[in-house]
């Protein structure tokens, strides 16, 4: 075994019950790092791009990175990589907590799950022993209770990943939950688990830390340096611990980029009511941290008589201004319901917002609403429709649980779905922030903020302050951020470290742990390779150039209120610049680009 990989993958066929241990191809691991990169490469090579996402032929890869479980800062990430039933393209949902680290401690770099179980099953892992167990008693049970009951059965030191009722019913907005309130939330990975009748994965490990480091002293030194930079950085040192990601509500509103009422407005006068400041004042018990994380951005809140994981910036916005609501208690409750039913806490509220606009315009009728009209700001609508989307019964409930793109299409008004590649757009108005629009349009998983977080330079001033209103140089910035993010995700490190760290620091960590000798430039080229293999997966899955788009509202409807009034996104300017920077023509890499990146297997495809 060599540094930071246990070189073991478990291939679990749920149809036959066969469990095989496969040797990790170390050269491939180094070429794609691990996590997001290696997971996508495995699925591309195994022909998953062309299968029906909810069929037994789809595969679920639960994969760690080389840094996962190490003693480096914020290194507890794992990813669920699969073909998304929501987008029909690559899904890579990334989560923290402790589950990913424990999978690694148990000695597994990844699990590849195939087929469909004859009846509801869960996977139980204790170090190198893997067994399939009967999960029928957990059907219909909410996610937190499943976590409690499986821990009761297998021991408090077990870590549990599971799907709630939403995943069971193959709801396209279903998330994979782990450690109660952590979610591999986006792109419908929970529905893929449901389609395989896989309810949960329990992991226990004797090992308490990654214990195969190529150069222990070098990693110690790299960790020390990174921790010093992170603790001295205003954001990773104290800002995120104090207010969490929720601190963004007021700043994004302050610049007039907080989408309101399904993006009909971009400034919400009462945003402070659901801001990080108010969350801290009224509900915060303490900050929460994932495995080995000094940042502690999580919010542990008091909710009724319980202490639970609280909302991040995204659900605060989406259940807040995007649905015309400023009641923070309702947001906390709706966010809790997303965790309990196992739902994407971005996709669900954004779809409710789209439904509220369809209701406002008279397309959804009151009589269709089952006694809970979809009125802007209705507290009852937010909580009740979240429950309904987590366990749909009626035609409208099913439609809404399939996301805003399918909902609005069914009503003949796709223009009200604020989505890209059928995935809902996160909480930053790309009319007021030009560069984030490039990322929304081109992210391979559909609209996402965490594939190239242009908010850092365009709003927060990290690493430098760019003018958010202009298009100049944004294409190259977006590409660079996307490439670096591909690296960080694949390492199993949390993206939030990048508020303080850059490519040289990531190279120092990865090289020490794995024994590679990448320069920062080479590392970014690996990121480029990963982004391109994702794109080639999408091409094989049937993606078209017109899928790199933004909703018409962002391109043609100027912002109607607030500081950014009058602005639109100029994607027609930035997208060609972006393709040029990537070496792509018509949304796809040229053969020359593929060869340059060492993706010869994709040439001519």
């Amino acid at each position, binding site marked *: 075994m060599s540094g930071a990989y246990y070189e073991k993958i478990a291939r679990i066929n749920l149809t036959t019950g066969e469990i095989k241990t496969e040797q990790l191809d170390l050269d491939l691991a180094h070429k794609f790092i691990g996590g997001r990169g290696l997971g996508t490469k495995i699925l591309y090579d195994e022909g998953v791009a062309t299968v029906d996402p909810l069929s037994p032929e789809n595969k679920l890869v639960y994969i760690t990175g080389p840094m996962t479980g190490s003693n480096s800062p914020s290194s507890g990430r794992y990813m669920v990589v699969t073909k998304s039933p929501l987008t029909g393209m690559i899904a890579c949902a990334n989560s923290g907590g402790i589950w990913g680290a424990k999978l690694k401690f148990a000695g597994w770099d990844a699990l590849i799950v195939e087929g469909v179980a004859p009846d509801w099953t869960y996977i139980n892992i204790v170090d190198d022993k893997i067994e399939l167990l009967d999960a029928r008693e957990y059907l219909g049970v909410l996610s937190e209770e499943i976590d409690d009951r499986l821990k009761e059965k297998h021991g408090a030191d077990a870590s549990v990943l599971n799907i709630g009722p939403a995943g069971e019913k193959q709801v396209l907005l279903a998330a994979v939950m782990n450690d109660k309130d952590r979610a591999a939330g986006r792109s419908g990975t929970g529905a893929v688990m449901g389609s395989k009748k896989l309810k949960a994965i329990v992991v226990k490990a004797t090992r308490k830390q990654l214990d195969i480091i190529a150069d222990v002293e070098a990693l110690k030194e790299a960790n020390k340096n990174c921790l010093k930079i992170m603790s001295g950085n205003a954001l990773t040192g104290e800002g995120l611990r104090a207010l969490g990601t929720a601190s963004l509500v007021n700043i994004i509103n302050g610049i*007039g980029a907080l989408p309101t009422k399904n993006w009909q407005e971009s400034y919400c006068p009462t945003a*402070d009511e659901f801001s990080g400041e108010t969350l801290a004042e009224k509900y915060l018990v303490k900050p929460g941290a994932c495995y080995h994380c000094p940042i502690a951005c999580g919010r542990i809140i008091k909710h009724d008589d319980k202490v639970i994981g609280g909302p991040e910036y995204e659900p605060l916005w989406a259940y807040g201004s995007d649905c015309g609501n400023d009641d923070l208690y309702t947001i906390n409750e709706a966010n809790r319901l997303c965790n309990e039913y196992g739902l994407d806490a971005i996709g669900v509220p954004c779809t409710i917002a789209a439904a509220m606009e369809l209701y406002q315009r008279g397309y959804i009728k009151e009589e269709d609403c089952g006694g809970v009209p979809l009125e802007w700001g209705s507290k009852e609508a937010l909580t009740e429709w979240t429950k309904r989307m987590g366990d749909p019964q009626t035609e409208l409930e099913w439609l809404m649980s399939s996301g805003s793109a399918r909902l609005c299409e069914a009503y003949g008004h796709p223009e009200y779905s604020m989505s890209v590649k059928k995935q809902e757009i996160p909480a930053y108005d790309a009319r007021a922030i030009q560069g984030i629009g490039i990322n929304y349009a081109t992210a391979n998983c559909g609209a996402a903020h965490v594939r190239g*977080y242009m908010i850092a330079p365009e709003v927060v001033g990290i690493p430098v302050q760019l003018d958010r209103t202009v298009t100049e140089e944004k294409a190259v910035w977006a590409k660079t951020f996307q490439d670096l993010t591909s690296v960080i995700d694949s390492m199993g490190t949390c993206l939030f470290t990048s508020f303080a760290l850059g490519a040289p620091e990531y190279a120092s960590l990865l090289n020490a742990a794995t024994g590679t000798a990448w320069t920062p430039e080479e590392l970014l080229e690996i990121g480029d390779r990963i982004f391109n293999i994702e794109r080639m997966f999408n091409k094989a899955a049937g993606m078209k150039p017109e899928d790199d788009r933004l909703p018409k509202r962002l391109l043609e409807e100027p912002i109607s209120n607030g500081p950014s009034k009058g602005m639109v996104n100029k994607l027609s300017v930035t997208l060609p610049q972006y393709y040029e920077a990537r070496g792509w023509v018509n949304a796809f890499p040229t053969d020359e680009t593929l060869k340059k990146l060492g993706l010869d297997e994709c040439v001519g495809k």
Partner: protein
Amino acid sequence: MIEVRLFATLRDGRGKVLQMDPAVISTAGDILQKLEIPAETVAILLINGFHSKPENPVQDGDVVSLFPPVGGG
């Protein structure tokens, strides 16, 4: 009047929203001085929603927002 909006830790002991007399304020930096806010603790300074610097002028009717380091989505 000039409306000054304070966020996160900058609210401590100062409040959320203050009105300041434009007769005694000519730049955003003057506001920081009056409120005894060290410039290095302000990560983001907005005048009417746009990123600005302490030396930028402010006038009657402007909204000035001051944030310590915030971020992360």
